[in-house]
């Protein structure tokens, strides 16, 4: 399903087309609804930046906390700038069933909107020229922009506590300017995953309502590549294969972060209906909200039960990851019509994460916050689930998943290697022992607590 340019979503298209026939919601009212939905839902998604920041700040050790905070606000900033400079165009303009959009820089408001804004009088012609687009162009930009940062946040969580600040941000530039927009263009930009050829070849278009694969797996692949190139934190894996936990310093903050993400996800999935200007869209958005909530709830409850059974104790951080895995899992198909399925999908996501996290440790892939498990693995599951639960074709889903991995993973590897062999990506050993807050920032997150310098 093309996410913006080709249509207002499958649902949106119908309603807009039908509108004149039934003299229902008038086009300007629908325009306002659609735009306001982008803005409000986008704003809700924007807040996920705070959620990722808190989740990660809670799960790192205190000597790296200030740095992860900085990385999070920096990556959100950079992602937004790059998406304005080039990302949006690469993703949404002139994709035409292909593999990439155009490189027109600086996405500014279209002439029709500027004409209306600058006119002495809002004549019907001027208004029509604007409303014909269905929504305010910049409201769409805003909504799409906030998704980019999500992909980048995933990477920051995995690589925390050992990656250098500026090289990490350099990767974010590439991810938000090119990698993510290219992948996005394949589907939401109306590219090949969405083409007649694809449907003919694999039985259906690739279905990814709000981005289990396009956003979360993309971030996850990039994180995985980074984790491999970067290596594990010093001391994390013992010589005899034992895993040494490095507990997060502030679990209530991690809990807050998860709640913020959950909150933000309603915008993420709900706003991906991409329209609000008809009864159909409103009803669909409501269904999306309900599925989103139930999948997350399923993820939490299953993750709790599995850890209770497996470890005899309940792991809070796994419950938090369970919520996120549930949310990621439902993101590909939150429009399914039997809510019970969303509980199953989310619940399986919650189970997956409990097994995937120690599995990563088996492979000595050191993922500080469990982002690869919760975003990549659950993202794959969620995308497949759309095929399983009747929202698409399993083969078409699989091909899309593989295509994204086959592009994002090696390209990310390449970028990480390039950075490693030039500026270097890893903090030196002493900096890692003392904490990145000291080496990169010269500043402590909690100077009066624990080993903080201001305790005396």
């Amino acid at each position, binding site marked *: 399903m093309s996410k913006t340019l080709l249509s207002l979503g499958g649902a949106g298209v119908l309603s807009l087309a039908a509108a004149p026939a039934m003299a229902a919601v008038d086009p300007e009212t629908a325009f306002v609804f659609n735009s306001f939905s982008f803005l409000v839902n986008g704003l809700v998604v924007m807040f996920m930046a705070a959620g990722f920041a808190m989740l990660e700040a809670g799960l790192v050790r205190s000597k790296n906390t200030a740095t992860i905070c900085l990385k999070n606000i920096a990556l959100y900033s950079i992602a937004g700038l790059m998406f304005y400079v080039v990302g949006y165009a690469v993703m949404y303009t002139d994709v035409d069933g292909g593999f990439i959009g155009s490189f027109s820089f600086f996405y500014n408001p279209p002439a029709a909107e500027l004409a209306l804004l600058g006119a002495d009088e809002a004549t019907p012609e001027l208004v029509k020229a604007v409303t014909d687009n269905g929504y305010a162009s910049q409201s769409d930009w805003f909504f799409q922009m906030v998704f980019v940062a999500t992909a980048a946040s995933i990477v920051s969580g995995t690589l925390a506590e050992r990656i250098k600040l500026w090289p990490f941000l350099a990767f974010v530039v590439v991810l938000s300017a090119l990698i993510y927009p290219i992948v996005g263009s394949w589907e939401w930009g109306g590219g090949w995953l969405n083409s007649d050829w694809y449907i003919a070849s694999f039985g259906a278009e690739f279905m990814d309502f709000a981005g289990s694969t396009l956003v979360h797996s993309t971030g996850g692949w990039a994180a995985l590549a980074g984790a491999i190139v970067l290596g594990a934190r010093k001391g994390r894996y013992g010589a005899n294969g034992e895993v040494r936990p490095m507990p997060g310093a502030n679990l209530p903050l991690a809990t807050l972060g998860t709640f913020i993400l959950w909150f933000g996800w309603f915008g993420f999935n709900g706003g991906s209906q991409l329209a609000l200007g008809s009864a159909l869209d409103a009803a669909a958005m409501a269904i999306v909200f309900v599925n989103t909530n139930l999948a997350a709830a399923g993820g939490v409850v299953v993750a709790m039960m599995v850890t209770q059974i497996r470890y005899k104790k309940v792991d809070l951080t*796994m419950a938090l990851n369970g919520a996120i895995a549930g949310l990621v899992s439902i993101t590909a198909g939150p429009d399914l019509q039997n809510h019970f399925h969303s509980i199953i999908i989310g619940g399986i996501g919650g189970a997956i994460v409990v097994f995937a996290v120690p599995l990563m440790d088996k492979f000595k892939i050191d993922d500080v916050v469990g982002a690869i498990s919760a975003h990549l693995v659950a993202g794959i599951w969620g995308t497949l689930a759309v095929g399983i639960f009747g929202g698409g074709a399993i083969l078409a889903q699989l091909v899309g998943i593989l295509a994204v991995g086959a592009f994002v993973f090696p390209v990310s590897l390449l970028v990480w290697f390039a950075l490693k062999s030039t500026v270097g990506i890893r903090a030196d050993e002493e900096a890692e022992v003392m904490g990145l807050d000291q080496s990169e920032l010269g500043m402590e997150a909690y100077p009066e607590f624990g080993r903080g310098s201001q305790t005396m």
Partner: protein
Amino acid sequence: MKMVMAVIKPFKLDDVREALTSIGIQGLTATEARGFGRQKGQTEIYRGAEYTVNFLPKVKIEVVVDDSQVDGAVEAIQKAANTGRIGDGKIFVLDVGQAVRIRTGETGATAL
């Protein structure tokens, strides 16, 4: 004068303080400490990986007393801090050559 230094379980601190006060000792200094010993630390689990906490929370008490009070202080602490379970801690007695009250400059036993 002697310094009686005791390592005890944290939740016994108030009992020990009261026991010492009741035998006429008017001051003491306490410090958070971590103890390693026969008592085994609990096993925690974090994200699927187990680990043992080797150092257990203890409180260290230092109280300087006149030679005549040493035995009383040791006994008071030993009774008050005792739970009968492993990890109750230790009492050590060290020699103190001199004591000074900072406020007044008094020295010796009157400084305590």
